[in-house]
């Protein structure tokens, strides 16, 4: 057991830290989505030009061949530097690795480079109004027409669709086949009339997500990823990448929020109240537990090639703790935290989405029960 970084890992971290110090874009603008997006796109270009665009990608595609641990360090340092996520985070974390795993040489050649440079942004067209947690229930239909597929259906929770050139789309190509077997995975061009985007305003008042209305969109057959009927397995590759490095970024963000609240309670003396002290201590335990479980999960993947039980546990623990922390801040700071423009007011509202997006806590518990603990399904 060795919980210190190796010399190589420290070297990687220090190089990155120095680079962040010299190139940090500063505080992200708040409010207007277009401005935020432009800021993040510029930030990704800066990362790309500095050689930090996608550390976890292989060198041949412009990455650094980073180990899992180095990739975790990258996201921790990104969070620690208070720098935003790059604009094309779904392309970097989801589309890129999925195309590397399933794509033809032509597809890799065509799609990977513009993901890295943020010239082409990606969104994820998986969820539908009737297929949320039950993802394999997607109804969006793709029908073959000559060299094309003609796609009709509706997608939802599509982050960044309005800025995206491409969409990772799961659609049903064989309605006769069983639920999981009738699906195929497409790379859909978003720039066509047949794809209409409608922003979904969330409880924070922002619109991070969209609905997609697809009415006979055309996708050339060469834009299928994997074979016809492979859609479910390709989608699983995407989903398995979903929580990889991002968890470390989110974990550090949580740590920063907690430190801010603790610092405030120290300077105004509220920490002398044993109830406040105990609650902050509890948040510290949860946040440290999260960090340790995340690192243990990485060690497990490095040693045994598969995650231990941690993978399913960390997202659950993170979302619960983030919600508890925002609520604690409001309870310590009082109703001032509920005023417009207060950052805790924002955290309070935004954190409600944490236990839903990217797998609801209920589904995560089901996964833990069935796949980790081996409990029977029916």
């Amino acid at each position, binding site marked *: *057991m*060795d*919980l*210190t*970084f*190796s010399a190589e*890992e420290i070297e990687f971290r220090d190089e990155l830290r120095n680079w962040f110090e010299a190139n940090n874009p500063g505080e992200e603008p708040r409010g207007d989505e277009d401005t935020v997006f432009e800021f993040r796109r510029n930030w990704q270009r800066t990362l790309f030009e500095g050689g930090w665009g996608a550390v976890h990608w292989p060198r041949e595609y412009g990455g650094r061949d980073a180990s899992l*641990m180095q990739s975790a360090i990258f996201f921790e340092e990104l969070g620690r530097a208070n720098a935003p996520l790059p604009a094309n985070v779904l392309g970097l974390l989801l589309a890129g690795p999925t195309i590397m795993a399933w794509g033809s040489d032509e597809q890799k050649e065509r799609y990977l480079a513009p993901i890295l440079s943020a010239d082409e942004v990606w969104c994820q067209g998986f969820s539908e109004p009737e297929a949320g947690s039950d993802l394999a229930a997607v109804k969006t239909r793709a029908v073959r027409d000559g060299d094309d597929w003609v796609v009709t259906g509706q997608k939802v929770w599509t982050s960044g669709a309005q800025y995206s050139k491409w969409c990772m789309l799961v659609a049903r190509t064989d309605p006769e086949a069983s639920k999981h077997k009738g699906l195929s995975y497409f790379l859909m061009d978003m720039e066509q009339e047949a794809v209409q985007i409608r922003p979904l305003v969330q409880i924070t008042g922002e619109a991070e997500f969209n609905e997609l209305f697809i009415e006979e969109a055309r996708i050339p057959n060469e834009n299928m990823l994997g074979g016809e009927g492979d859609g479910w397995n390709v989608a699983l590759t995407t989903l398995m990448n979903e929580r990889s490095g991002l968890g470390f970024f989110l974990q550090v963000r949580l740590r920063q929020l907690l430190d801010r609240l*603790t610092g405030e309670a*120290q300077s105004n003396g509220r*920490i002398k109240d*044993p109830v*406040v*002290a*105990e*609650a*902050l*201590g*509890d948040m*510290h*335990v949860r946040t*440290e*537990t999260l960090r*340790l*479980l995340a*690192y*243990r999960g*990485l*060690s*497990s993947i*490095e*040693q045994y090639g598969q995650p231990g*039980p*941690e993978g399913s*546990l960390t997202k*659950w*623990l993170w979302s619960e703790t983030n919600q508890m922390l925002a609520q604690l801040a409001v309870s310590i700071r009082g109703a001032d935290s509920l005023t417009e423009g207060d950052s805790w007011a924002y955290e309070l509202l935004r954190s409600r989405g944490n236990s839903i997006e990217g797998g609801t806590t*209920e589904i*995560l*518990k*089901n996964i*833990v*029960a*069935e796949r*980790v*603990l*081996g*409990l*029977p*399904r*029916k």
Partner: protein
Amino acid sequence: MRFDFTEDQHEIKRTAKDLLASRSTPDKQREAAEAGEYDQQLWRELAELGWPGVAVDEQHGGGGLGYVELAGLLEESGYALLNGPFLSSVMCAAAITEAGSPEQQRAWLGRLAAGEATGAFGIAGEIVADAAAADVLVIADRESGTMKLLPDPGIPALGTIDPTRRYSKPEPDPSTGEPMPGDAQSALDLAAVLVSAELVGICRRVLDMTLEYVKDRRQFGRPVGSFQAVQHRCAQMLLHTEGARATTYFAAWAADADRDRLPEAAALAKSSASKAGIEVTGSAIQAHGGIGFTWEADVHWFYKRAQLDAAFLGGSSFHNQRLSTLLTPSG
């Protein structure tokens, strides 16, 4: 970074687990608890294997391994609900190693490591395990940060809800005991890590027992473990257990390799493991239904020991408050 046991550490744990599975069976533990006695034969066997001295340095006749290895043994002994003075003795040896004078170390560490003498460790005025029969007791005073060593303490035993161990309550007495030169805090931190390791083992065991039960027990024509309410309870038990395990081994590692972080890590571990112990064993009783509430089912032994372990040296509320001061630069 490698947050995992080495092959040797795995081997030590596996061997311990196999040994205890045959020597510390539920029937034996029930028998010992109901009779209010420890299995002396098993203690001698463990002593021959060098368990009590695993983390004592070689110069004093110990195995010279670390707290990670010792935590591994304690996790397995918690899993097996081991009776006997193992936890108490190793906490006592850790305290003497940390804070004893060279004479005190010469007098006691070798005998404790060999299992010829048994030790106990605790806080004055609080409940302490095994102080009645121990050959040596180390007693800490939180207020002054000092410790005293008491040979042949002979503190009368006291009934608690946990029949798997003998408990006493040594009152503060300025007239007895040899002062120890070192600081009490690191001994308290090490003891907190060691008892946390036992709690991790307790959590794992009752989770295993619960999983076995809910897969087997059928109602409404299906295993009760197929109901989501039961499944989510079990998932929560796993989250508590894994959190306690991660923080405990982090703290054991800090005890071996990064002493600056030990105070915080020990508080983390004890907070996390105390909460887990209480929640997971309580949940195990619930998931066993009516059977879980009977004397005959074995879940209650773990619940009872977890309660005493959780309260010992302060539970999660105490350690959470302590953490908030450790994190406060102004103090």
